[in-house]
């Protein structure tokens, strides 16, 4: 992959909270139309890395670029403004806002709401008559679909998702996976997933990496036959 195709490039990045360094010297990249999964056990720094990319946490060392632009010190709303759709692991929707309001908030151009929403209803038909419902009253699975829907409606260049499969039924996970793959195939969006669900990651992603104690411990292609065993080994308890 040539450098010009990199949508996200993380080079030698360390970051953390205050004086604590949680992520150490991480290098990784996501190419155009590529899906990369970051795996690792709890507390290893996966979410911290996503928050650092999004500009929530100061980069202690290293460079983060989006489409060749250095964005290392940009605040979250600027990063989002560059076409990055981010879904945090917890508190990822506004519970007291309606479904429609949640979707609108993700869109840089709300005038395209009807058009995008029509497209979306083909992926998640249940949403069609739920626009006025308070998002907090959706079921757990529906909330996750809303998170994904919000990301897709923004028509981003890059989607960053933190553990979307957590606590979900297999059928829901399946639909989310298909939705991500379809979106990538249709729009060429790049996706960076943080996951603990190995099967899901392997099904969706092109490449994987494992984070251990804040450092990239191992990485590879998802198509490789040994991938599942290698990752499972890293995540084993």
């Amino acid at each position, binding site marked *: 992959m040539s450098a010009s195709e990199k949508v996200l490039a993380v080079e030698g990045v360390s970051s953390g909270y205050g004086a604590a360094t949680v992520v150490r010297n991480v290098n990784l990249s996501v190419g155009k139309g590529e899906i990369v999964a970051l795996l690792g056990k709890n507390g290893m720094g996966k979410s911290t890395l996503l928050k650092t990319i999004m500009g929530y946490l100061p980069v202690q060392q290293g460079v983060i670029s989006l489409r060749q632009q250095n964005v290392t010190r940009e605040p979250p709303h600027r990063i*989002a403004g560059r076409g990055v759709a981010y879904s945090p692991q917890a*508190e990822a929707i*506004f519970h007291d806002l309606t479904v429609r309001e949640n979707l*609108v908030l993700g869109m840089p151009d709300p005038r395209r709401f009807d058009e995008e929403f029509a497209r979306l209803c083909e992926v998640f038909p249940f949403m069609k008559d739920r626009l006025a419902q308070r998002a907090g009253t959706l079921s757990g699975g529906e909330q996750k679909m809303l998170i994904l829907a919000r990301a897709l409606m923004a028509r981003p260049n890059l989607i960053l998702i933190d553990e979307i499969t957590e606590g979900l039924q297999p059928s829901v996970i399946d639909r989310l996976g298909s939705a991500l793959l379809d979106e990538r195939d249709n729009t060429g969006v790049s996706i960076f997933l943080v996951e603990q669900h190995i099967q899901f990651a392997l099904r969706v992603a092109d490449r994987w990496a494992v984070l251990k104690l804040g450092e990239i411990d191992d990485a590879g292609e998802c198509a490789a036959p040994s991938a599942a065993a290698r990752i499972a080994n890293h995540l084993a308890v």
Partner: protein
Amino acid sequence: MSVLLLDIVTTAAILFTVATGLMIILGVMKLINFAHGAFLTIGGYAAYVATVAGWSPWLAIPFAALVGLALGLVVEYVIVRPLYARPLDAILATWGLGIIIGQLITIGFGREVQFVEPPISGAVEFFGLSYSAYRLLLVVVAMVIGAALTGLLYFTRFGLNARAVIMNEDLARGLGIDSTKVRLATFGLGAALASMAGALITPLISVDPNLGLPWLVNSFMLVLASGVSIPGLMIVSLLLGGAQVVVSTYISPIIGGLTIVVLAALILRIRPQGIG
């Protein structure tokens, strides 16, 4: 009896109008603006300047709002912005700002009491009673302000962004909302509302450099007791404002002056989140 009812309703309307600017800033920015009283005073003097210049009293009100908006934007940028992480210090800094504004007004206009003409004067017949036309007008104004603010918060993109920032600022930022801008606009809006309210109440009282102070304390108490919501503020304005009118009428105006402060402090002890 009916006059008492009209007194209660018009007093509540005035209290609501005066407190909204403080509430919008507290609601969105989690910041208690103790310069609120000074912004009211500025509005009063803006109306006075308009009167002296010979403008229509109707024009004085938008003029005051504009002055407040401009001042609010500057103040947010210079004084308030560094203090978001220190909410108690923000109270003090805005109080200090109030002193500065008060002294500048004193230097500019002197300490004398000034008077402003109301846009409409005299009394109207209202259900067989003769009642101040301007006070009744203020009830309409309060309702318009309440409706306009509700519309702004619930039917515009700015309102949606502001509510998103209130509920979860980190998530809102991650979705591309510049919370710094939302705060700047909110403080400008709050200052504009306060200044406009100052212009609205001056025909009833009179203008002097300390006009805003008693209103600041009552607004502060009402806003906290309201649970920082528009309907909540309407209800507490009616309840506590009503209590104030009743106590002032039947017991003593001096005790009446305490009603709002004491009742609000008690409400907050029992329900720290207010009635909203």
